């Protein structure tokens, strides 16, 4: 498996609180992605990055922001968590526009 870690792996939080998820890679890949996975919806892209400080929105970006200050780290922030953001979040990396390598996932529950 590619060197990707996500933290935390599990988190329970309350509505209205800010939450930050971290993705860390040791592969020096240029592209990093954040997806959410919900039953019946497959994987939906939230935001992605194509370099340090270069990010763009995906399909379901509302309510989420990202930052990438170093090649190896890509942070996903929920400014004010809502119950609809309860999901499993996956980070992925790729060298180019081809195969993606996924991290182990973070299970987030917003009460």
């Amino acid at each position, binding site marked *: 498996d590619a060197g990707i870690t996500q933290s935390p792996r599990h988190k329970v939080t309350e509505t209205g609180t800010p939450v930050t998820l971290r993705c860390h890679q040791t592969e020096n890949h240029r592209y990093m992605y954040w997806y959410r996975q919900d039953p019946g919806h497959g994987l939906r892209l939230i935001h992605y990055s194509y370099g340090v400080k270069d990010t763009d929105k*995906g*399909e379901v970006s509302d309510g989420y922001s990202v930052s990438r200050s170093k090649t190896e780290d890509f942070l996903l922030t929920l400014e004010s968590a809502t119950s609809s953001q309860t999901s499993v979040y996956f980070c992925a990396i790729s060298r180019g526009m081809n*195969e*993606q390598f*996924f991290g*182990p996932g973070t299970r987030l529950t917003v009460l």
Partner: protein
Amino acid sequence: GQQVMQIPQYQHVQEGEDFTTYCNSSTTLSNIQWYKQRPGGHPVFLIQLVKSGEVKKQKRLTFQFGEAKKNSSLHITATQTTDVGTYFCAGQADAGNMLTFGGGTRLMVKP
């Protein structure tokens, strides 16, 4: 926006039976990728198809890309319990676009 539909959503088979999942895109694709996710795990890249009408095999798995580059299929011959998981297709509309994932087909195999 681009949509990728996948059927069936679920499939139960007896061990030894064949299995097929189908993927259809609303737009012509540059390439299509397939991923497998074991229960409780993360998606793992299986293969990428690029050419119109392309067929690739990996042991008991056969992947096809349609002539119009809008549909694809994954066929597993003589399923085994190790094939259990959810299979996702993911399409890329052109070289600069992100992947759009289908909803996945969950395969369950009875021993």
